């Protein structure tokens, strides 16, 4: 952290800002030249996460087996984008063109930068790279599809494609061929379309799909299909970029400011944080009811398991306990809940000895004092459970037969079960879970579930018990806080971060005070200061 570089650093930034428009002239750009500007550390992370969310939206759409760019696909993507608070990207993808609006230009910049940032994260393994390229290509096609013929021309020019639309005369020569080869377009429309003549080797997929007119080694490609040509180029570009990024990984690793973000990015959870529930208190007495109505299958099974066996294994306890914390069960209640159940099978002493610590621990009150985060779907799905375990994602862990029985015992109709199973059998557990939600809540839309607490929340909202939050997953800034009800010490549970900070500060202060000389204390405990890395 050098403070000496003050002037230079700021100076450069300003220069960059001035030339933004020339730098990002077009919505659709081949990501060829790496960005050269400086970004703020916060912005860097923000960009990375934003892009990740964007790509994940596309990923979700593609897991639904929708054809890319079909109307349905577009619909889902745009709905998702809106919900994720990525409207600017939606605009980027749907309006096309080269608008000069400041906001658009900013978005282009974000798009450009974030793509390159993600390259650094996704070059690390072949799997990641494959996923990244696929999503990026979807995004590219999405963007490209929105371009008008003029803009396509512009784009081609700007990016040095040496191809030009056929002149009318040229077009006339091959008119018949074009008519026959262009599917699903009326003759009139074909007249209006621009066609490009390219060596057939550049559009092999069109040739393979018999989707263009081929003559004398040249393919005649219309504007819409041009994406296949440009896309290949784009794909090469990205793939090469990833290769190049791979060589940079070491440098990136050395930069502790960003290495951690980038390393964990691909499997980070981008949804809301449920570590501390701020919304409502859930009395443990209502858990039975809630488990039937509002809990996702994984949690419902845990709950039933506890009620039936009065015991649950550690992983299950972690999963369910943290979930309960996330939905708003206070520490005291939680202790009471577990104690009541467990002491049916063991004496209270044993419970105190073996389990209490753990619950305190989860609430960040003992041990390392880390307030544990409730498990997200990704984590639960990853968490494989064996026989006798009840944690993990039931959609994944249970074999189809028993899952079906389970679902039908929960009152799903056969057809509904089939609907759910359709996704489950393809390994899309979260969608299956969403489907289940939709079916059980009779909700018109199928929410995308990525966190059990998210499921719970959605369910509560759908049932009218809670209000919908303002736009999704961005860290909530101003949130409406319902009246405090319920019992127990809510300080941790409900407390504001700020209040908690005060509490920490005061405890620290007390410790400090108790030692006579503060500076000495610091020197003595040098190793107490945080060791980072």
């Amino acid at each position, binding site marked *: *952290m*050098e*403070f000496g*570089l003050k002037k230079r650093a*700021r100076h450069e930034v300003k220069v960059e800002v001035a030339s933004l428009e020339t730098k990002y002239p077009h919505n659709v750009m081949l990501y060829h030249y*790496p*960005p*050269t*500007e*400086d*970004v703020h*550390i*916060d912005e860097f*992370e923000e960009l990375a*996460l934003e892009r990740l969310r964007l790509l994940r939206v596309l990923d979700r759409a593609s897991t639904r087996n929708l054809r890319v760019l079909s109307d349905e696909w577009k619909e889902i993507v745009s709905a998702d984008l809106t919900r994720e608070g990525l409207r600017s990207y939606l605009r980027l993808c749907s309006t096309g063109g080269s608008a000069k609006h400041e906001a658009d230009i900013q978005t282009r910049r974000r798009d450009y930068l974030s793509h*390159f940032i993600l390259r650094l994260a996704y070059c690390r393994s072949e799997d990641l790279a494959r996923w990244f390229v696929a999503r990026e290509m979807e995004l590219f096609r999405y963007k490209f599809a929105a371009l008008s013929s003029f803009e396509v021309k512009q784009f081609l020019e700007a990016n040095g494609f040496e191809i030009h639309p056929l002149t009318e005369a040229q077009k006339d020569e091959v008119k018949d061929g074009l008519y026959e080869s262009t599917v699903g377009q009326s003759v009139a429309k074909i007249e209006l379309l621009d066609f490009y003549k390219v060596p057939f080797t550049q559009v092999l997929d069109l040739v393979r799909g018999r989707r263009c007119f081929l003559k004398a080694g040249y393919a005649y490609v219309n504007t819409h299909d041009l994406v296949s040509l440009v896309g290949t180029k784009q794909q090469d570009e990205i793939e090469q970029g990833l290769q190049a*990024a791979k060589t*940079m990984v070491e*440098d990136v690793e050395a*930069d*502790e*400011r960003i290495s951690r*973000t980038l390393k964990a990015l691909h*499997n980070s*959870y981008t949804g809301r*944080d449920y570590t501390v529930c701020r919304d409502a208190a859930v009395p443990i007495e209502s858990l039975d009811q809630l488990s039937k109505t509002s809990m996702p299958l994984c949690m419902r099974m845990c709950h039933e398991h506890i009620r039936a066996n009065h015991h649950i*294994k*550690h992983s299950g306890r*972690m999963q369910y306990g943290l979930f309960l914390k996330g939905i708003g069960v206070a520490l005291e209640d939680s202790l009471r809940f577990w104690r009541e159940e467990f002491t049916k099978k063991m004496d209270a002493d044993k419970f105190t000895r073996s389990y209490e610590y*753990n619950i305190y*621990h989860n609430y960040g009150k003992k*041990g390392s004092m*880390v*307030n544990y*985060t409730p498990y*997200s779907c*990704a*984590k639960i799905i*990853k968490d494989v*459970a*064996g026989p006798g375990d009840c944690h993990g994602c039931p959609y994944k862990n249970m074999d189809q037969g028993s899952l079906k029985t389970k679902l039908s015992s929960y009152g799903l109709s056969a057809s509904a079960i089939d609907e759910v199973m359709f996704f489950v059998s393809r390994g899309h557990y979260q969608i299956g879970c969403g489907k289940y939600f939709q079916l059980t809540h009779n909700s018109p839309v199928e929410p995308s579930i990525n966190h059990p607490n998210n499921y719970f929340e959605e369910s509560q909202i759908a049932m009218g018990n809670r209000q919908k939050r303002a736009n999704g997953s961005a*860290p909530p800034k*101003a*949130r*409406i806080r319902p009246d*405090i009800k319920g019992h127990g010490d809510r300080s941790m549970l409900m407390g504001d*971060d*700020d209040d*908690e900070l*005060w509490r*920490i*500060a005061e405890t*620290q202060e007390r410790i400090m005070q108790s030692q006579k000389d503060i500076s000495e204390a610091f020197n003595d405990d*040098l*190793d107490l*200061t*945080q*060791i*980072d*890395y």
Partner: protein
Amino acid sequence: MSESPSEPRAKRQRVDKNGRFAAMERLRQLKGTKNKCKVEDQVDDVYDVVDEREYAKRAQEKYGDDWIEEDGTGYAEDLRDFFEDEDEYSDGEEDRKDSKKKKGVAPNSKKRPRENEKPVTGKASIKNLFSNAVPKKMDVKTSVKDDDILADILGEIKEEPAATSEKAEKVIAPAKISVTSRKFDAAAAKEYMNSFLNNIKVQEQERKKAEASSDNEMLERILKPKAAVPNTKVAFFSSPTIKKEPMPEKTPAKKATEDPFSDNEMDFSCLDDDENQFDVEKTQQTEKVSQTKTAAEKTSQSKVAEKSAPKKETTGSPKESESEDISRLLNNWESICQMDDDFEKSVLTTEQDSTISSDQQLRFWYWEAYEDPVKMPGEVFLFGRTADGKSVCLRVQNINRVLYLLPRQFLLDPISKEPTKQKVTVADIYKEFDSEVANQLKLEFFRSRKVTKSFAHHAIGIEVPQSCDYLEVHYDGKKPLPNLSADKKYNSIAHIFGATTNALERFLLDRKIKGPCWLQVTGFKVSPTPMSWCNTEVTLTEPKNVELVQDKGKPAPPPPLTLLSLNVRTSMNPKTSRNEICMISMLTHNRFHIDRPAPQPAFNRHMCALTRPAVVSWPLDLNFEMAKYKSTTVHKHDSERALLSWFLAQYQKIDADLIVTFDSMDCQLNVITDQIVALKIPQWSRMGRLRLSQSFGKRLLEHFVGRMVCDVKRSAEECIRARSYDLQTLCKQVLKLKESERMEVNADDLLEMYEKGESITKLISLTMQDNSYLLRLMCELNIMPLALQITNICGNTMTRTLQGGRSERNEFLLLHAFHEKNYIVPDKKPVSKRSGAGDTDATLSGADATMQTKKKAAYAGGLVLEPMRGLYEKYVLLMDFNSLYPSIIQEYNICFTTVQQPVDADELPTLPDSKTEPGILPLQLKRLVESRKEVKKLMAAPDLSPELQMQYHIRQMALKLTANSMYGCLGFAHSRFFAQHLAALVTHKGREILTNTQQLVQKMNYDVVYGDTDSLMINTNITDYDQVYKIGHNIKQSVNKLYKQLELDIDGVFGCLLLLKKKKYAAIKLSKDSKGNLRREQEHKGLDIVRRDWSQLAVMVGKAVLDEVLSEKPLEEKLDAVHAQLEKIKTQIAEGVVPLPLFVITKQLTRTPQEYANSASLPHVQVALRMNRERNRRYKKGDMVDYVICLDGTTNAAMQRAYHLDELKTSEDKKLQLDTNYYLGHQIHPVVTRMVEVLEGTDASRIAECLGMDPTKFRQNAQRTQRENTEQSEGESLLKTTLQLYRLCEPFRFQCVTCKTEQLMASAYRPGPSNSHIAVLQQCAKSECQTAPIQYLASVRNQLQLSMRQYVQRFYKNWLVCDHPDCNFNTRTHSLRKKSHRPLCQKCRSGSLLRQYTERDLYNQLCYLRFMFDLGKQTLQQKPTLTPELEQAYQLLYETVDQQLQSSSYVIISLSKLFARSLAQMSLQPSVAQPQIEAIPSALADVV
């Protein structure tokens, strides 16, 4: 204590029952004559030769059915054997009784039920028998009485008989060794340790108590008599009386019984008390015999003699004169072998002439080959033995040099040396060779012809066509090499191959001699003047006359060889500062069958010679003691020179084929040769088999020309995996000896031992014993048979195999293969001037080192998958590829002949077409693999004799070893077949295969939790053993169908796996026995607890914790148990119940203590220095230093408070006290934490809490690991709440100007009562104070500035902290030595330094400050409304921080810098795109 009591008996071969009585008789007659220690008597064969079964039968008859007693120790039977022979020396008796008196107690004698059967009267008869020889006969009785008393006492103590016998033994253990009282402690510690692991159960504690009491009692008893003897000086043995006693006895037993080595001779205690029994039995027997069989004895004896050695000359030998020596009885079994010797000799003398004069054929088994390329070029010596046991030296002369001249494509212009247009013809080459080379070399004669050869090795710097015509030239091997230097350019010859090939290699390749085998020689001459020390020596001028004996059917087995095992004790002569030899122990066997299971013991003669170290003089009682000492023939010499002369004479007489030593290169042989050369002992070359006059200097092995040298240590390094390879460890691991059964004698002890006669004899015994151990190790490890097999497979020489030169083995294997396939073999690199078999290993080990460093950089090795840390309680499947690399070579047909070397060294070569003919390397491997399969098939045959079984097993082992090491020679830079591209290709394929397999397994929906090079650990997530196997088979099938050769197989199932790090895990391996029961077995890899540099305590607790973690319990119970364990140990340490030795930390001095530069931070060095200074110890390089960390009243760092245990014990008024906190915090805590921190539900601070330490101290650490964990795990959010972000930051503090109260600020609004909030700037923290902070805003701002500067300063102070949990060293000194990017900790040298206050900390802190004033970021729901002034004030302060923040370059990430490389590449790109170089194929156009 041997595990299987009956086993050694099974190996017994020759036993005599009768002769001994005769001997006894003679002994009695001799009594009184002064008895020399030198006993080389020659006695008639006094033994019956009985076979195994016969013996058992007889034994059975003799002792009744219960003669093998189940005292759990298994020595009953052997002890019996001891004293069968014991009676052979009566003098020993005296000593024994003597000591018995002193000792008084023989604690565990009553363990043996049969003893009770013996009437005590028997003892009396002993007395009678020996009355004239033994002065203190009454002692026997007293001692026996003592025994009885003790037996009673013990009888009372023991409650469960089974347990007690064991217990009693344990109890005695300390006493029997008791080298120092320390050792006793050690035993107690061990006891404690064992009990610790069990005594969680309360009931066991009782038992322990009982044990302890018996322990004390025992000790008391042992010590009391000692005190009673005034003479006994308590020097350094706490109980010397006991000590000295067993020694003399043990070795006789060893010698006499032939098989005690499989049991623990070191177990003095048993010997102690058993000898009483011996007496009883002995006398009974002797009595009986002497009464009844005296007459018969003579006849039987002579009969035996006739049988075994009809031609023996019974007179004439000088030893015969001593035949009357009393102690020949003692050694009567030796006389057998001696007789054999004579027998052989006589045979030799009679037959020698006939063999040689017959001039037709000489058949012998060739063992060793040697050439001296400098002095005797073109000659090779072969050494071996004939079937009738004569040693043979065959001198083969006239081995021609063979050159292969590669023609140039175009003739060079003779002057300009530029290629002309003229093609080269064979005639051209011939002409040039004739005129240029032959002239230059002054060849009178050479032969040449045109041959077509192939060439496949690409790394010689010139283009060689795959196959072309060469001119093959033979000329006299005595002539020098042609000029090969690079500046010599021949006009027509492109390259000369084969010039540097030495004669031995040419000979072996040409004659296709692959390792030791029967050779048949014709047309030889007997050398007139002997060149060698062998019995037979012949010279052969025509190499072709050496032929392999082609046997039809089964090949004849090798003849027995003669082995000599050496163990030498040295002491440093301070004057000359040389190591001088003071004791040599020799064990020999003259009919050792390499192809059969080794006899027990593996020697049939033994002797020992000693002299005194330069610094001591002989003790007065030496002669007396020596006279008593009967365990072996001892030869006393007054000088080292005399000793060595004697040694050489013996050595020559033995004429060993095989020398066995331990650590020969660095220690034993080195010293011997050095001293022999230094002292100019005449005819030193007798060490080898060639008569040489000049010394070789440092080339150690060349001193032993013609003899194989087996270094047990080195071979063990190759054969097994051990923690270390010193004799102690190996004995423990391989021979299953207890630590107490062997005693290491260091230099100090040695000198001390020389001070007293009895300890000298003890030293002799120890030396002999070590010697026998190493011989046993050699047999146990099957070193020789394995080496023989490997040598036969590879075709190199035995010595080289024994020296472990793997690359050379493979080299020879390939040389043979290439030679057979008509390939030109690559030349040796001129760098490593090897001279064939006599090569020193020094170059090799040096090469090894360089290889390692080079290899690292050269190409990537195996792939280690990132482990998914954690505890797996479901079954984990362990699968691995059977010999991955050899299979890859076969699978992809990777060979010199098939894979082209890429132009760019970093590039991977392309794989050969699948249609390509398999290359030589894959073929060789295939051969090896298939023969192994064949052998295994043979092994599966149902009724296989164990002998054959063993042979097959060794053969398949050898095949496996060779196949697996094949890959190594590709990557070994000094190998002749070094081909880095191939090695890189192989490992690349290996990585690829592992990744593919991993993916495939993942696709099958199983988790791969870890993988290393060729193995995968797969979490099956079920707990059904058979099911897991089914899964394994599924995976196996689906993987294996992808490959032809590669084979994934199930290696095992882990019931529980604790995966900590790469190469660090512990697991419970499950296996099913025949009954279908699951067996659980712990397996560790790389854990702290297997490392030595932790205290025993930490290791013990670590083991206990690990046992808990791996036990079959739910996780919470495990954690419970772990926590309980820790709490228990905490209280125990606090109470001081834990025995001291457990606290000892042991470290080895890797150099002389004075040589350490930074001794201040190395506790063991400090201790060594202090002990040397103050307590007259002599710690030196290589010694292990024990220390404990104590509180000494100073505030020094723990590492500077290390003391020796003795210092602690003798410290006055408790000035030194054990630093228990250190042990809790720095020994137990880190060891345990590292193991359990991956478990959910506990962490470092919880562990600390259990250990009674301040948990907050570890909170940071725990949080860090926690964070790392979450970052690694999936599905965590990267977005942090303010709490998560700022919880570790410090709040802002400022002082109120009026009331001077410190104001705390954690966020913009201070929480007030009843959920209200108030802006901090609006009101003073002290409610009475009326001044609002906003009123002194300037001051607040100032204070803010100051505190920010303070943080910045703190950052720039750059305090570093060591990340090693038990070091935590704080420093500001930045070291340039790096450990994975970070500076290495200068103090502990194992951790790396981290910034205490990192950039991120500072950044977070500043962000936090900024956040406090950022009203928009406050997450309060109901914000109090603020006046504009207040808002402005906040804004002002916000900007103050922001300014500071923005002026840092930390907050700016320069993308241009990040992508700089990419940008640079882009600018280069157009020029980069160039076609690949296509030079090679065109250059390979055929020549001629």
